[in-house]
């Protein structure tokens, strides 16, 4: 007994792709990625300025300033990697943010002066790094296209 017409119950009705998904399928980068890259660039610049002008905190010796500059430059490299949607960019950015947040929290714990704007930018970056479309853009896709 074979049936040619197959009834699709209401519960199985498929939803249309969202405009954001349409954009993704068209190869466009999600807006979250630009916000993420912007926040990353701003954090890096702020860190570079702080390094160049000498840290206000007790960390302000020449070695720490050099280290701060290296971290800032790394951050700017990551901005490029994010915009180019390099596969390693998400993990590397996450590690970078972790290090920066840990540093700021350590400064706060020592009653030094953490950079609150950098902290807020880190927070924004964590939120955007965990957004589905940003994740998808920075994750290697299996051959045959994007996941449905």
């Amino acid at each position, binding site marked *: *007994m074979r*049936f040619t017409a*197959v*009834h*699709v*119950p*209401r519960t199985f009705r498929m939803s249309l792709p969202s405009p954001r998904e349409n954009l993704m399928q068209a190869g466009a980068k999600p807006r979250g990625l630009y916000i993420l890259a912007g926040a990353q660039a701003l954090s890096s610049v702020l860190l570079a300025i702080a390094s160049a002008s000498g840290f206000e905190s007790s960390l302000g010796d020449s070695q720490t300033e050099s280290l701060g500059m290296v971290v800032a430059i790394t951050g700017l490299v990551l901005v490029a990697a994010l915009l180019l949607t390099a596969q390693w960019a998400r*993990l590397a950015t*996450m*590690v970078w*943010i*972790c290090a920066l*947040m*840990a540093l*700021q*929290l350590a400064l*706060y714990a020592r009653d030094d002066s*953490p950079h*609150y704007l950098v*902290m*807020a930018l*880190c*927070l924004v970056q*964590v*939120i955007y*790094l*965990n957004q589905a479309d940003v994740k998808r853009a920075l994750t290697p896709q299996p051959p045959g296209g994007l996941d449905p």
Partner: protein
Amino acid sequence: MTSPSGSIWRPVNAGDPAANLELLRRYEPVLAFTEGEMFFPMNVEEYVHRSALYQRLDDGRTELLAKSGELTPRSLAEVGASRFGDRLFLRFVERPVNGATLRNWSAHRPKLKERRHLSGVGLVDRLGDAIARIPTPGGAHAAEGTVASAQLQYADVLSHAPRFVYYGRVIEERAYTVLSYHFFYAMSDWRSSFFGAGDHQGDWQQVSVFLANVADGYLEPAWIACESAGRVDVRAWEDPSVSRIENHPGVFVAAGSHAGYLAPGEFITHAELEALRPLSGLRDRMSRFWNSGVDRRPARALAVPFVDHASGDGVRIGPGRSCGWEPEVIDASQTWVEDYRGVWGPDERGAFAARRSHGGPMYDADGNVRRSWSDPVGWAGLDRQAVPAMVDVELSRRIDVLEHDAAVAMEGAGTLRSVLPQLQLEIEALEVASGAGSLLAKRKHQLDRVEAEIEEYEARRTEDLVSADACRNLRRSRDVNDSTKTRPGSAAKVVDGMSQRRTADVSAGAIAAAVVLAAVALLVLGAPWYTAVVLLIVGAFVVDNVLRGTFESFVSNAAIVLAVATGVILIYEVFWPLTIFALAALGVLLLISDVRELRAR
């Protein structure tokens, strides 16, 4: 009598001890022990004879009921029957050997060839393991002395009567004839000798072979099950991963714990901390709540992992080996099986549940009948599994049922569909008729209901047809593929195998050493000591997660935790600027929206 397919004719006189013995001997397993093992399956008679019998009183004290040398299995059964409900236990080792004897024994005892590290589990688990191993004053010495005493006694038993015994039982349950092989060991020295969770005197283990009662009175081996650390490892008889010599399955016995595994290797088992057992209920409830929403494995926060070494590179006992079995069929003459509900060693409450001694083949440590005894098919999780030889038949039956249900659904939908035009015409007639408002509404409602029912019938028919197609596909793929690969789905509770990551172990050592060196260098350079400590801890977690392939998830979780902390600080420190900023941002957004609206006009 053997059929061409390997199945055997069911003995006519089933239930007769001789027939049961014939069945048991036909499928008796070959036990492959690990090098370093000191205790092998023995006769309970010798053990009971050398043991003293005690009763644990309600106030915690113990009372001697029979001295060592006074007991026989029969008298043990008599005491057990007359003291129903009392907490009885046997003590094989009265006191540990003295220091000199222990030193001499330790120098000559067999040892485990190679100990694997816990590289397959997380750092937190390993920290738990390390904490659980902190020795108590005199504890390690006493435990090893007890093992030495038990081993010396067991060696004496072997020198007088070198017998390796199993206690076999044949039971018919549902579609199976179950052959249960019970093995008794004088001592489980898992903790003292093999870095495990606990030691205890008197250790019972079990291997079961399930013979399917197939058509025409033939029996065919279908499944094999082993009990390992409270779980049941069940595999199809024809599973290629089960090693067999003719009809004799190979079982790999873990060193010290004597847990049975159907493949050689090192296995991670988790032992729950006894003191934290009351919290388990709370943990389970939380897990159930969490798992109802998302697909995550339940947490195992209260358990400590241990490695069960079952490499099978030691003594082998069974058919075709230099050491064979001396079977004892469990029947009515062995009254100790049913009448003695006590445990077979002192029930010392230790840090882990695994330290408790075992009840006999029939009872657990609390004197309750084991499920493996009363319902072996259910114990092995085979209730929902089709007998491998009957899978095609069962699939065909299911396809028939589904197709029948689909046809019934189609018929139901057809009948209702034939009513629809009539109802519709009736409604149209009522619409033009005067004074039929309430009846019209009723009929319209009826029409909606009939349509909904038709949709329900169609949905059911579709589901049945999809299922029937899936069953047909499975049947077809079984024809193409090797049908012997059938394994129980949820019934197979295979203990997690630990990957043998020698290279990873070496890398872990090297990287950990680098992290330690970096920390030392930081200290020398004058960094505060806590910087080095933090670096060490973070480094250890990073190395651990990199090696276990969970680095990305570790970083992601760490970022979230740090972000939460950062968020709390920001709210605490810059609440008003943040609020003003948020309000200003909201205002700008509203303004943009208004401007867009104006432009659109």
